[in-house]
């Protein structure tokens, strides 16, 4: 359950629309079911009243939409940002990807979003999902209802939430939280402890499912290139379909490399992957390595920070030692 009520958001949006601060509102729109909530742009208080939702399935991060939307009008757009969204927001500002002046950012606290995939794998024919705080009741069409611990239904990114603190906003609804110590590197470490053969088998299996739908890339707030190298026939590495195992790896390695130092670990890539490939484990490996090689760095924690990959010291670890360090980890 989200601690802050829908009405608070709706009232805030209506108020800002009414007083002319903004003329558009990014928010979540209700769908056919409890869980299929669409990110949407609202322009009237009436639509907001009728269709705006706030709850356990409002995972979508609006930061990336701001690139396009701020270019469309001179007026401000209202965006609701969960703590993890604010990191993407800052990272995009660092990269000059949108005009801060054209955005009114309202921070909303987040208690973790539910993972639709986990819900669907625990029940079929879902007709209703009710969050009672610690427990979630899933009603089904033909199998009655089941009750599960809310924690069981949280996606990895929320189980390992890195921060309940908003690092950017014009206004904050509710209480701000703190940056958290998470166990987000546990899974990376588990992989590091495997033998190379096991790791290879693991990734081969995971990446072989990739259908190159580009959802990971297109949702990623760090992947904002005007033209992605993989789409560009002139780049020399254009690659539309994962024709074979090599191209599967190539795409994901290079994508992870391109967002290294810029990835805020928002977890959207893994959320949207139709094949449930744990893509965040690639990004987290880079984050973990950056932290351990060059000192802790959180992309998006502050606007204008210089990512370690575009920085150096004269005493940096040698690539050979970096790899050997994995071995001894």
């Amino acid at each position: 359950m989200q601690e802050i009520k829908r009405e608070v958001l709706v009232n805030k949006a209506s108020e800002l629309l009414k007083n002319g601060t903004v003329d558009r509102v990014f928010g979540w729109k209700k769908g056919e079911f409890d869980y299929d909530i669409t990110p949407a742009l609202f322009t009237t208080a009436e639509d907001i009243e009728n269709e705006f939702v706030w709850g356990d399935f409002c995972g979508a991060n609006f930061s990336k939409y701001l690139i396009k939307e701020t270019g469309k009008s001179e007026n401000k757009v209202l965006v609701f940002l969960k703590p993890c969204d604010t990191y993407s927001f800052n990272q995009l500002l660092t990269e000059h990807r949108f005009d801060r002046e054209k955005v009114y950012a309202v921070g909303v606290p987040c208690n973790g979003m539910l993972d639709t995939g986990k819900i669907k794998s625990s029940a079929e024919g879902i007709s209703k999902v009710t969050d009672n705080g610690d427990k979630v009741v899933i009603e089904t069409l033909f199998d009655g209802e089941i009750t599960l611990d809310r924690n069981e239904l949280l996606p990895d990114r929320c189980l390992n939430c890195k921060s309940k603190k908003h690092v950017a906003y014009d206004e904050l609804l509710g209480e701000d939280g703190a940056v958290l110590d998470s166990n987000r590197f546990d899974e990376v470490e588990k992989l590091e402890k495997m033998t190379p053969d096991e790791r290879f088998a693991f990734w081969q299996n995971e990446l072989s499912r990739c259908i190159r739908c580009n959802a990971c890339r297109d949702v990623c707030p760090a992947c904002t290139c005007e033209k992605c190298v993989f789409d560009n026939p002139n780049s020399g590495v254009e690659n539309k379909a994962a024709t074979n195992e090599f191209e599967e790896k190539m795409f994901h390695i290079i994508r992870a490399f391109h967002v290294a130092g810029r990835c805020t670990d928002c977890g959207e890539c893994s959320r949207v992957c139709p094949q449930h490939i744990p893509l965040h484990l690639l990004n987290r490996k880079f984050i973990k390595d950056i932290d351990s090689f060059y000192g802790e760095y959180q992309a998006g924690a502050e606007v204008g920070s210089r990512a370690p990959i575009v920085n150096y010291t004269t005493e940096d670890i040698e690539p050979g030692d970096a790899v050997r360090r994995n071995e001894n980890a």
Partner: protein
Amino acid sequence: MRKISLKKIDSLFSAIAENSVLYMPVDTKTGAKFEQWENGKELSDSLNTVRSAKDFFFPQTENLMDFKVEGKKIEVIDSRSETEDFVVFGVRACDVKSFDVLDKVFLAEPQDSYYKNRREHGVIMSLACTKPNETCFCTTFRIDAAEPAGDVVCYKTDDAFYMDAKTEKGKKLLSALEGITEAADDTAVTEQQKLTRERMSKLPLASLKADAFGNGKTKEFFDRPEWKELSESCLGCGTCTFVCPTCQCYDIKDFNTGHGVKRFRCWDSCMYSDFTKMSAGQPRLTQLERFRQRFMHKLVYFPTNNDGMFSCVGCGRCLAKCPIQMNIVKVMKKLGGNSNG
């Protein structure tokens, strides 16, 4: 109609696998997926595989031909290898219907021989649904989940498998299995169908109708203002296209291997910004136009060209997989009026 006890199901599979490669949906941690059957693999009870069954006839990538280039000389090499006979088991009614849609495209003159070849070598053993999902809406397109099409239609009850051959190919296959199957009447099957249909009628999307769309409705829907709102948050990824059993757009690309050129085709998506881009211009500049294309194609253009047949089969995959949860049902409800929902 033939039947075999559920306990002996493996003997059925091994009998089929003796003569053809047998594929069927199996469960994995990340959803059901078609895999080649081998001893020990169990048929999944899931409704939808993550990827649809279209892969069997229209794979995501396939090599079309090779070229050898030397100086100014070019040699074209037809590098196709012999296709093996195969059986796809457990295809649901919606996916079976998708083959009809694909046939309309690939088997229209001039026929696509790559597709045709696979189609000829493949036998479809469909499987009737018993417990539909909340995202199912095949009834909207007049598909009966309780009685799918296919070469052989199968029904799984609590204790047995029932099989009914519908085509020559199917009859041939079933007759080869007569040794291990027994004749059966359709009582159990009819019973099951009744239950299934009753369940279908209770689905949240049961009342969704496609009647507003179809043949000749281009002008009516093309300029509708709702497209803007619907397409607003579309990311332009290809998820819906690639999980869709009927999406069939493709691209043809060349790959220079260093000692030759491979011309291959791969799935493409009309949602991609460069889909219709050419050096001289781009007819579909905005995501709105691309988004509209996909749904107009499924609901209007395709029916216009194919006697009213929609190119959506209501499998619900896009409902489950779209990163932003936009899908054809929302489009139909928005454009077709709320009476549809």
